[in-house]
């Protein structure tokens, strides 16, 4: 088989892989590296469940080939917490119950981390525009909005 060699930098760690080039980043993160925080929802880039950060910018890992990410710093939800505890955005989602089933939660949290990096004090309109591409089918949007606002500096 014509697997290709690939080095991925994920959450600060380097992974040497032999994979087929048509595999998506989502698939490789989950099946080869064992990071299952990014989930497949729609599979077409609309729902946001597979959100990861590439050089601090959110993308849909279902729409990117793993081989496209070889020169980037990839962050998944597993990379947010530190020895000091949960990331403030993670803690806020717990404090404000910004989820029900939580399938969408890693995507929302990573999108929020990126939002707050670009807009430390976002108004409601900015939050809603930025997060419009993350869908929560439980409908926890009010609580998610409260959690995001609580993180605004």
């Amino acid at each position: 088989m014509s697997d290709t060699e690939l080095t991925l930098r994920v959450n600060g760690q380097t992974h040497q892989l032999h994979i087929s080039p048509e595999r998506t980043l989502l698939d490789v993160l989950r099946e080869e590296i064992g990071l299952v925080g990014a989930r497949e929802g729609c599979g077409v880039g609309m729902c946001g469940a597979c959100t990861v950060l590439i050089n601090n910018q959110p993308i849909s890992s279902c729409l990117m080939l793993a081989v496209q990410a070889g020169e980037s710093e990839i962050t998944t939800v597993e990379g947010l917490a530190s020895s000091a505890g949960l990331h403030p955005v993670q803690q806020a989602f717990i404090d404000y119950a910004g989820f029900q089933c939580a399938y969408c939660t890693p995507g929302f949290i990573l999108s929020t981390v990126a939002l707050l990096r670009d807009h430390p004090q976002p108004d409601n309109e900015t939050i809603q525009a930025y997060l419009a591409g993350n869908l929560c089918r439980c409908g926890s949007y009010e609580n998610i909005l409260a959690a995001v606002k609580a993180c605004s500096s």
Partner: protein
Amino acid sequence: MSLQFLQPETLAEALALLGRDPDENKIIAGGTAVVLMLQHKLIAPETLISLSRIPGLNSIHLADDGLHIGSLALLREVAASGMVQEHFPALAYACEVVGNVRIRNQATLGGNMAEADYASDPPAVLLALDASVVATSAARARIIPLSEFFYGFYTTALEPDEIMTEVIVPALPANCRMIYLKYKSRSSEDRPCAGIAAMAAFDGLICTDLRVAVGAACETPRRLLEIEALGIGQTLTDELIQEIAEGYAAGIETLDDLRGSAWYRTQMIRVHVRRALKQIGAGRPC
């Protein structure tokens, strides 16, 4: 044989690779469209040639013939560009409303155009801007006006051995106003059901130039020059605007999909051409 993924370091290298077997090779820019097509087995190339390592293909700069936008500029970069915002705010807006944040972080302007998906925002605006694309092969570079670029569903004037390297947007006339209206029929992050780009230049109250492009409601973005001509040299009264809107509704063959029937889209073209012209006629540019 399974897929190969190549990352040439220069445009010349990419063109040489592509030219070896254009029918079996496929260019990948951001990948939002190509990866979906691969996943759904709509395409089965032997080789993907990535443009991501080629330096300079995402540059945005002003030249004598207009603003040059590198084909690899991300939609986010086009939307955030100070030059685009200053000279062509409707284009910045159209790139800002594509898909969602993640799509705009990955998709490129060149990829958006080369894919030629009808349900998209930037093509209608660029058509109304009289933009052109630069198509480069190993043998030559040629400029294709956007009015001659879109052939049909997912089909363009690009030859199999060509790579789109730039989009060129010429300066707008003086005293003009421009707007892009994105009409969505389902949800806030949806693709357009219809997109209307309109530009009008004025000398006092007289309209001296008028361009109206309709996208997403039809197979390719369309302008109707004979209908645009109704407005030139005239004052854009409510009656004249209605006549132009009726002309666009009658003159464009619309399509059916989950975002609306052909009949519905015809009505939406009428409504949104009217609204667009009223807004720019009243001095409220995008």
